[in-house]
């Protein structure tokens, strides 16, 4: 599909989120909830006593996983799956550049993910929550995030050239 059309489609979905729920979309927040739930299951005292976890655990009356963002990303996974299935693009594989190995890819995927997790926590959001949602709302912090992310991506690209090209 034409990327612009896909973008407009996402924009409409984002707009609907604003119109129906008064909020935008997100992703990293859902994973914060999942992490908090996991830690709480293993070490409940530790989780409830520490601010970054406690904030995602709620008051204990319902499961913290009964959270809007968690349900949303379940939808995201489903939607992606459906689209790939319909287009015959579902494939168990490892996406990587032609000049690297599967193993290296895994290491970089894990590492990149970890770094993004830290960045997203600092910025209180990721490309879905800050860039798309905050961007549409013209929030200053969100646009700072967008500029920072793109700038850093381009500046750091030479470091990972072997990974992708």
């Amino acid at each position, binding site marked *: 599909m*034409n990327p*612009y*059309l896909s973008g*407009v489609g996402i924009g409409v979905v984002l707009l609907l989120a604003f119109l129906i729920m008064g909020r935008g979309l997100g992703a990293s927040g859902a994973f914060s909830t999942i992490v908090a739930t996991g830690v709480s299951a293993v070490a409940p005292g530790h989780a409830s006593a520490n601010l970054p976890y406690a904030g995602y655990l709620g008051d204990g009356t319902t499961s913290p996983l009964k959270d809007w963002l968690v349900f949303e990303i379940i939808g995201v996974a489903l939607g992606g799956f459906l689209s790939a299935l319909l287009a015959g693009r579902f494939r168990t594989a490892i996406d990587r550049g032609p000049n690297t190995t599967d193993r290296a890819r895994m290491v970089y995927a894990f590492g990149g993910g970890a770094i993004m997790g830290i960045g997203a926590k600092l910025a209180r959001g990721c490309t879905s929550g800050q860039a798309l949602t905050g961007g549409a709302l013209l929030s200053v912090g969100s646009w700072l995030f967008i500029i920072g992310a793109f700038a850093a991506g381009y500046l750091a690209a030479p470091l990972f050239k072997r990974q992708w090209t």
Partner: protein
Amino acid sequence: MTSNQIMAGGALGLALFAAVAGTPYPAGADGDSSASSVRVVNVAEWIRDRRAGLQIVDLRPSEAFDRFNLPTAINVQLGALGVAGLDSAGLVVVYDDGNGLAERGKTILHALGFDSVSVLRDGAARWVADILNPMVARDASDAERAEFDSVADLSRYFGGMPRVVDRIDLEESAATQLKRTLRRGCAF
């Protein structure tokens, strides 16, 4: 036209209209200060009647303010609106020299939580003209004469000089009119 061009054109069109509209809030939204802009005559009446909660904010540079300002107005720059100590429960009337500052000030105040903000239509120059120098032609209609009479008292209250003239001189620029008014020494 390709679909990309149609999308781009549509977005650009909507954006141009948005820029013209300025604020995303509907015109004349809510509250008793429902007009997003007000006429000088109304503001003059509010000042004269000492309307509670009325705050007049002059957004122009301090030199302009010192030269001439509306009675009871305070001089606040756009960037200082948040810390000017304005009361959000009252009605704020912002004005400028007709160069768009007032619209911006209104937007900022709305974002700061002020519900009742109005822009003085046509800026400070309109006050100088309509309140301080109201004129009516000798051969004006009854309706025009009546309107002039109702403004005349208001004008005199503020030290203006209502006049009946042979012919309304539309050539006089706002700057000239202001100079003439200030020479009289009675504009606050």
